[in-house]
């Protein structure tokens, strides 16, 4: 009986499988398990894992922490709006915030050093998309995400907002400059 009719047999559970199905199910199962175990494997042996470290916060509290860092470590300003470029010491906690429609502040890192990068939003949801290295995360208001990152290429990286945040979404860019070590 075809698939749009009831099965011909009242009891179909005990019908033997064809070899083609049994073989394929075996192969597909092995592949599925391999893909599953690849993820914990990468947590142990891989270098690109997003931390689950996060905190609840408020825009005011987060802004205060960011501003304190900006006041302490600003090295220069850029653009007509005098955006601060902050060069925090390696290993320190770095605060980046997204708001309509700006990433604040601009950051300068040293290649090969590790930073604890905190990110949160002041208003709506934003997307942190670092290009061209291509790292993408979701940024929520009220939550502070912490990524421990080690830039291993020097040059200019651009933070693009990749979560729709209103009419000025496409202008929401930021920068992370990575300098060669020892400068």
């Amino acid at each position, binding site marked *: 009986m075809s698939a*749009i009719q009831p099965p011909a*047999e009242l009891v179909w559970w005990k019908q033997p499988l064809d070899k083609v199905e049994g073989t394929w199910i075996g192969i597909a199962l092995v592949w599925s398990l391999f893909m599953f175990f690849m993820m914990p494997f990468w947590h142990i042996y891989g270098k690109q894992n*997003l*931390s689950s470290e996060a905190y609840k916060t408020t825009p005011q509290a987060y802004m205060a922490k960011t501003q304190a860092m900006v006041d302490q470590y600003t090295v220069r300003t850029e653009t007509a709006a005098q955006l601060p470029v902050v060069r925090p010491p390696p290993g320190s906690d770095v605060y980046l915030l997204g708001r309509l429609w700006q990433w604040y502040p601009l950051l300068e890192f040293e290649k090969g050093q590790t930073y604890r990068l905190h990110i949160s939003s002041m208003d709506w949801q934003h997307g942190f998309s670092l290009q061209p290295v291509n790292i*993408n995360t979701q940024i929520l208001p009220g939550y502070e995400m912490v990524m421990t*990152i080690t830039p291993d290429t020097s040059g200019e990286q651009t933070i693009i907002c990749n979560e729709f945040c209103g009419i000025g979404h496409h202008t929401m860019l930021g920068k992370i400059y990575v300098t060669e070590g020892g400068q």
Partner: protein
Amino acid sequence: MSDNQFRICPESGLQFHKPAEMLMRAHAVVAVVILLIGGIAALLVTLTRWPAIHLLPADRFYQLLTMHGTNMLIFWMISFEIAVLYFCSSTLLRCRLATPRIAWLGFALMLIGIIVNNAAVASGTASVMMTSYVPMPANPNFYLGLILFAVGALIGCFVFLATLVVAKDEKTYEGSIPLVTFGALTACIIAVFTIASGAIVLIPTWLWSLGYINHIDAAMYRIVWWALGHSSQQINVAAHVAVWYAIAAIVFGARPLSEKVSRVAFFLYIAFLQLASAHHLLVDPGLSAEWKIFNTSYAMYLAVLASMVHGLTVPGSIEVAQRAKGLTNGLFEWLRKAPWGNPIFSGMFISLIGFGFIGGISGVVMGTEQINIIIHNTIYVPGHFHATVVIGSTLAFMSLTYFLIPTLFRKQVAFPGLAKWQPYLFGIGMSSFTLAMMGAGTLGVERRHWDMAFTNSALGFEYPASAFTLMGIMGISGVVAILGGAIFILVTVVSVFFGKSVESESSYGISATRLMRADPVVVPEGGHGAAGKWGFAAPGTFVLALFFLAIFVLYYAVNWKYLASVWPMS
């Protein structure tokens, strides 16, 4: 229940309950009208993202993208699926539809919801994308429309379940329900979970938009919203797999290789498919790796296993049916001599291949916890889901529509010459469209983004030239696919509203005539295997499946390699 409530389709032998038939027609007509609205929005959105044209201003672009998303992903799909549910229960079980009046209430709520939601978006006060992430506010009617639609669809699901009960009670069939009905049941169950999640998240959001609630937590919203947003696409997967089985049965008289295997595969969908809502939360703050890994992998990829099984058993059952008819030369004579000029078949087969090779593989790869870091919210994501929802579900539903025009609407298919080419135009256009998007996404191009040149930004950024080229290819392919979609709507509307009634023959009646009254395909002595090779009933399909696996493994490995080149992070 009087006998004159039923009609037997003279061609297919299908038995239609008249109230159910009217409901199916109403849902299908609404679905196609929405497809038209969503399609016009699609054209304008595509022409804006095609960098050389960049048609619309930013506000219009986001407004039409919102309209495109909700109409296509929610309203078109679910409206058509309710018609499929009624077909798979009332028609396939040769049973009256339970409570047609309540079903009409569901239809009315769905229709009002569609209108209310679209009016809100059209007013320009709800350009928040389908996801309407809080705390970005929308016109309250945006949420209200979705809620009304969801309640209506839930009523449809319960009418379907009630019809299964009626059929069993009234003994309109013997033994188990047909496999296709079982697939529809799978879709219905996922729909119930989806819609319930939608209510849990959208009702408070609606109250928030009206000012009765102060605050909706962004992270909580995302978890529950994606139980709606992603699972609704899993309804489509279950429904279009059921449609594949149905078309294999309709066109070839194919019987499932094994009822047990196919039903267990659907069961794995029921239990695990919905966990993949986590795909959207892999780079969200605060969720543990354990939660992400378990959910994103559908509990150890058991639902992927199920899809790989369907991907074998659907063409496998066609191969067995074709071999039984004597097409036994080589590995692929059964496929070469398939009715490629019949859009019911060609559409279904392109849907199967496109869903598996493009949508399926990309979905699993980007849903891998760590690989998502290089893909989240890039245009790769819509690339992936256009392969699953458009090539997979929409094209399968289009194919089914070519069968429903003569059987359900009793009309001849208009412009059969155009209809013959439509699945190719649509399927190939869409395939090229999705591959170009995935390529551009790999280069970091963002989704839901008006201007990849970042005009007027204080700090500029330039994508590589190849990204612009790929977005151009996306634009051209998108226009080709939309042309294919327009032909579908033209053929459907002209056939249904202006077409000639079916007398004894219809354009695609040849395949339909064999349906219920035909003898099922003769199974050779000694089971299916006797007609195949190497002791396999479907050796050609097995070779295709191995080819699929090879591409899968290769692409999976390439993406891990790409990830390994990204800055170390922990």
